[in-house]
């Protein structure tokens, strides 16, 4: 008790004695604020569970997700098959467990490709303004002129169906909004007195953009990217559903829903289970994003 008190006192000190203590205090306050939002914590827990399931898939899944067993086809839920079996007798639970890897793969890759591109284009465009800004923003606008899914479809059509191509297509269509947000934030920040002040200390553009502007853009981008993850999951599943994303027999949730369509009248679990998985993960990202917004972007509420 007294030792936790002491820690708390150290963390909340009005006059921290080191940069580390100052940063720790900040993190602590942010964390405390975040933990108060139960729904956001719930979202975070689901995402943590998703990551663990994906990591330990071989140990969690009772069956091989790809091995067919026609004798056992279209079995309802049971102790042997928690979520039943599909039209060729594969265990749906195992397929969903392995499918979590594909989901993580897609959102991870899209975030790694799209976020840095968006941030760099946005901040550079916003900071320098003028011709650079005009050119970069024209390009961004061209990409924004297509509805996302349609452009992704066109790219998939050109590159051929498949999960890698779906990732590329989604990434290409995801960065423009990030660039827009980063640019907007940069323009507001750039005109702030503290940027003038650091310019007067003799700092060059690279130091200003990376050390002063980006850290301030990043919090609103993290919120946006987290919320977008939900959309990316839905888009990837949609591509899978149309037969343009991951190809059978790989256990991608959208593709599983698509094959289950033929059996919806009598074998409801074929579409219900993968659909629920998509919904739960996407909901988790939405809840986490909303919670992060309240912590990182205090101006939006209250």
């Amino acid at each position, binding site marked *: 008790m007294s030792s936790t008190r002491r820690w708390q006192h150290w963390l909340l000190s009005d006059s921290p004695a080191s940069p580390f203590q100052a940063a720790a205090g900040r993190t602590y306050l942010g964390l405390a604020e975040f933990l108060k939002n139960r729904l956001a914590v719930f979202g975070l827990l689901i995402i943590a569970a998703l990551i663990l399931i994906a990591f330990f898939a071989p140990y969690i899944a009772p069956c091989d997700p790809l091995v067919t067993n026609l004798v056992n086809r279209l079995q309802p839920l049971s102790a042997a098959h928690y979520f039943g079996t599909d039209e060729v007798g594969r265990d749906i639970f195992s397929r969903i467990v392995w499918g979590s890897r594909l989901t993580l793969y897609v959102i991870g890759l899209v975030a790694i490709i799209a976020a840095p591109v968006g941030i760099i284009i946005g901040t550079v465009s916003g900071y320098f303004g003028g011709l650079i800004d005009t050119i970069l923003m024209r390009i961004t606008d061209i990409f924004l002129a297509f509805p996302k899914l349609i452009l992704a479809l066109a790219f998939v*059509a050109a590159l*051929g169906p498949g999960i890698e191509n779906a990732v590329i297509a989604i990434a290409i269509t995801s960065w423009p909004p990030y660039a827009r947000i980063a640019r907007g934030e940069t323009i507001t920040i750039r005109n702030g007195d503290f940027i003038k002040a650091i310019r007067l200390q003799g700092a060059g553009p690279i130091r200003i953009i990376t050390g002063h502007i980006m850290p301030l853009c990043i919090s609103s981008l993290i919120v946006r990217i987290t919320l977008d993850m939900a959309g990316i999951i839905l888009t990837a599943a*949609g591509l899978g559903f*149309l037969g343009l994303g991951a190809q059978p027999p790989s256990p991608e949730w959208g593709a599983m829903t698509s094959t289950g369509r033929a059996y*919806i009248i009598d074998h409801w679990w074929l*579409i219900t289970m993968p659909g629920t998985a998509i*919904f739960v993960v996407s909901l988790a990202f939405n809840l986490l994003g909303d919670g992060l917004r309240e912590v990182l972007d205090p101006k*939006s509420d209250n």
Partner: protein
Amino acid sequence: MLQLFTIRRVKKATHQTVRLLIMVAITFFGLLFITFLIGRVVPIDPVLAVVGDKASPEVYQQARLAMGLDLPVWRQFFIYMGSVLHGDLGTSVLTAKPVLQDILRVFPATLELAVIATCIGIFVGIPLGVFSAVKRGSFLDHITRVIGLLGYSLPIFWLGLLALIVFYAKLDLLPGPGRIDVFYEDIVDPVTGIMLIDCIIAREWDIFWNALAHIIMPATLLGYYSMAYLSRMTRSFMIEQLRQEYILTARVKGVAEWRVIWGHALGNCAIPLITVVALSFGTLLEGSVLTETVFAWPGLGLYLTKSLLNADMNSVLGSTIVVGTIFLGVNLFSDFLYKVLDPRAR
């Protein structure tokens, strides 16, 4: 002094309009460039697609020259652009008809869905957002939040399938996939292409009710997503506006609360909301691809999906250009409205 002000206003407005049009032209140019690039990286040989893979080398070469594929890339692009601007989007391999003709045939079905969905979004979503912003933390606010969360998290195709199971297969309340029952097909003359309106023109009331029953599920489904989006955006815009000081001024004047909310605050939200409605219209075009697939709705989305699965590149790129152009047009229109409604932007 004030006359000068008016002259400035007019000059500025012309200046801005010209700027806007140039921007749109550049964006359209880029749109064509991207579709052109996509068309060029396709692994399918366009010549083979025309002459078939049993053609002799001479025929192949002739077709290649006829299609202009020996010309430098930039010449090819300008030829492509010229033909698109003349409304020539090529011929569909699947239907053997000009792509533009195909699209004009299927588009009204999509438009019908998108317009009804947008109406649901505007007339349900916006009031819902206003109420929940005014009574923050109330029961209604929580409902709005759940509607929003579900709208952002549920896969539209899955929700469509579940709706089909429940309302068609189990309860048999609503008809199944398709735009109309099979035995009613091809009775009504497609004057506008929009089934409901065509039925009214032809005074075929049985068919009208049948078509209406068919459209309920897909339109409500799309409308739900539009509502989720609009109510959430409206809520946050309203919260922002209600914090402003002019709201306090209105209250000081003794303005009734309902007029403060629906007149002053919503009046200021209307301007950003126009952009949001335009955006949501674009999202609906995209949602229609999945919805139309689920409900076998013969619109642009279904056409695009079928073309994709059959590697019919002319149709795919043609549809992409058409959707992109519509999107651009809607955005241009919203920008224009923005200029008209917001005195600060004039």
